[in-house]
């Protein structure tokens, strides 16, 4: 096991504060790991960011909206989408249970569903609660297969006996449960048939089953034959030996390294404790291979922003609307806004976050945060302490030493290559 408590905190959560890092150093690696994954204290921080109450989707009781009604309802949706986005980013910032929150963010990227197509903030929030509340991966898969946002996102509501749509069936295998190469095109088609018959209801915020649209005939999927339906298909996929290994590899990519494949012993050890996600993470963080990935993972834009806000003592709640808009636009321009993953494959990783276009947006966003932080005096060493950066390279140290204004110092430190990688 590595001793690198700072690495553990940076990867398991969104970015530790200097105080949290100091406590963790005193507590040691094992104690910190337990506190992260099995927190014994209640989440006081999160109580200051209660989940928004949205009420019913504005389109739920408008079966045939007029143009004017459509414009108004879309306006409500846009405001509510911004509301849930702001809420979640704020909760990431203030929650004491950093690792559990980060895990929810991981699952969002795993079951990547975008409000751009789903449009309903209510359905997105419902999906969010489902991932947050799932007992384990088994429970999560069963619920996600009939989650209205996911079903709508992958055209499940168009999937009927008469005209089957294979979108959801394919992604269940390729991106959510097995990984590419572990099934055939025939399996995809048959899985599509097993999933037929679901419709999405905005009013009840649920999927409902229409038996007459379901293909109840016999299917053969991955060697199993029978009148398979959604629940039996999910069970069947969960029983495949590839499933735990696929989930382990997806966790490795986000928590350890996006460029190196997961070492086989690590993968097998994680698969051993499947389907409990926290147990899998514990195995990962206790593995020697995890410590060896230090310095190789690029922060996702959300991690960079939320971590920075935590370290500077800022939060989105209570910011003026204009500043909030600037920050959300910045995140969007960096390519990562919660609830808007680019595709069902989720967000990218590694060097793709480091384009020159992103460099400029990051500098501007750091400028916004540094203004909010309003620090009066700062040295390069102090800013390293605040941002939990182990140390500056000669290059960055020289740049930081050259500026006097603490605001400028903060901008450059947050933009520094050292701060972008964990």
């Amino acid at each position, binding site marked *: 096991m590595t001793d690198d408590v700072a690495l553990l905190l940076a990867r398991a959560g969104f970015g530790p504060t200097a105080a949290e890092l100091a406590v963790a150093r005193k507590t040691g690696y094992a104690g910190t790991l337990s506190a992260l994954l099995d927190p014994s204290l209640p989440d006081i921080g999160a109580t200051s960011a209660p989940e928004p109450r949205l009420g019913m989707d504005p389109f739920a009781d408008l079966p045939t909206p007029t143009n004017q009604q459509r414009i108004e309802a879309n306006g409500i949706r846009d405001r509510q989408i911004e509301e849930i986005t702001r809420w979640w980013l704020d909760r990431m910032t203030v929650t004491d249970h950093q690792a559990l929150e980060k895990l929810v963010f991981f699952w969002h990227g795993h079951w990547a569903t975008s409000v751009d*197509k789903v449009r309903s903030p209510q359905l997105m929030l419902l999906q969010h609660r489902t991932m947050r509340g799932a007992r384990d991966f088994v429970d999560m898969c069963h619920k996600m297969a009939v989650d209205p946002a996911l079903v709508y996102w992958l055209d499940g509501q168009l999937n009927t006996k008469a005209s089957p749509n*294979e979108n959801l069936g394919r992604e269940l295998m390729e991106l959510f449960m097995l990984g590419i190469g572990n099934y055939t095109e025939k399996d995809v088609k048959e899985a599509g048939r097993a999933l037929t018959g679901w419709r999405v209801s905005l009013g009840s915020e649920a999927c409902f089953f229409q038996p007459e649209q379901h293909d109840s005939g016999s299917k053969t999927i991955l060697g199993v034959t029978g009148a398979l339906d959604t629940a039996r298909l999910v069970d069947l996929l969960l029983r495949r030996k590839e499933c735990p290994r696929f989930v382990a590899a997806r966790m490795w990519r986000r928590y350890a390294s996006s460029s190196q494949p997961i070492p086989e012993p690590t993968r097998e050890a994680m698969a051993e404790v499947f389907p409990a996600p926290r147990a899998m993470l514990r195995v990962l963080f206790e593995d020697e291979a995890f410590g060896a990935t230090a310095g190789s993972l690029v922060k996702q834009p959300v991690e960079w922003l939320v971590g920075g806000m935590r370290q500077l003592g800022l939060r989105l709640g209570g910011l003026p609307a204009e500043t909030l808009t600037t920050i959300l636009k910045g995140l969007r*321009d960096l390519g990562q806004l919660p609830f808007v993953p*680019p595709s069902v*494959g989720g967000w990218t990783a590694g060097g793709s976050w480091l384009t*020159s*276009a*992103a460099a400029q947006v990051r500098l501007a966003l750091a400028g*916004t945060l540094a203004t909010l932080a309003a620090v009066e005096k700062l040295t390069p060493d102090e800013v390293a302490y605040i941002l939990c950066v182990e140390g500056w390279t000669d290059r960055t140290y020289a740049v930081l030493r050259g500026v006097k*204004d603490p605001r400028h110092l903060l901008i450059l430190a947050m933009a520094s290559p050292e701060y972008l990688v964990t």
Partner: protein
Amino acid sequence: MDALTRRRFLLASGVAGAGALMAGTTAIGIAELLRKGDRAVAGSQGQVLVLVTLYGGNDGLNTVIPYADPAYHSLRPELAYPQEKVLHLDDALGLNPKLPGLKRLWDEKRLAIVSGVGYPRPDLSHFRSMDIWQTASPLTPIHTGWVGRWLDGTRASPEMAVSFEPVLPVLLAGETRAGACVSIGGLTLPEGIDAKMVAELGRPQPGEPAMQAQAATSYTDLLQVERLVREVEHADDADDKGGEPAVPATGTGGASALSTQLSLVARCVEAGVPTRVYSVSLGGFDTHAAEIAGHEMLLGQLDAALTSFVDRMGQTEAGRQVTVLVYSEFGRRVVANASQGTDHGTAGPVFVLGHRVAGGFYGEQPSLADLDNGDLKSNVDFRQVFGTVLDSVLQADPAKYIDGYQGEPMRFVPVG
């Protein structure tokens, strides 16, 4: 395009899964790209394709106008152009009055218009329809674009296909390879931060981790790109080709005007850069309301940018190897809506321009008397059009990269 911006389009595109982008997009600066150029070989490295994407759904009926059809005037009285204003191409069709440059290229036989291009069972979501055009897969959503698959198939390096967009469009994403993303937005830094500080931040340090070094490089790239874009814009001003107003509010964050993008393409082509496919774009065509003014402004920009590019390309051997293809994810409804705009529609015209192009009409103008639920019926599958440029411009087998491609290529870029 208001709610759904161009950038969101790109992000929303199905770049996913096991595709090359999971491994990381290649983000390179234009300086690096130009360094790969060799003027000595400019023009001898094969033909070049420039794809111009009009995001938002261009109103084809008010671009190539069936002015002689009484149905055009009766179906959309609020939006129809009077006969005498239209730039006549033949006795049935004419160009929008804001496209005089394209009219000249038409007269010079350097503009081909493929009419009525679409695909079966049109999808009216921007998101999905743009995906369909870029992946060339109308029935099944897939994660690769047709140019990306060509990169895979030819084992090409990333700079063979270049996008001047902040985010790589799915068009250029293959299964194992992806095109390069070259950023060209102008440089704006927070108050108190100057280019020198950014340059220092970009200095690589011996022994630093690879990703950290790449983060540093992104700052160097940012400055190089800025310098080059400024040079290009400056040179264009000197040539009196500037003056294009900024792209109207598309919320694209860092994207730049079409003419700037095309100037950079021109520079790269003249410099002998090995790139075979360029992807550039103009957004804002989602004209749901008060269409005429907004659409005319966009067409004016398109006309100026395309015309000066094609003229400039005609002056060098390398430039004469360039073919431009202009498309949009769909056309618009024939009948106007209640807001003097049009809602999402179906088939539309595709423009093909360049020195090698055999000008004239291809395909068949959809009939206004035979509508499908108020929408035009397409007569040409877009896969035939893309297949043709794969065949004639990239000298590749269309069937290998476009599922559902059938039969003979069209003849708008004669071989040889």
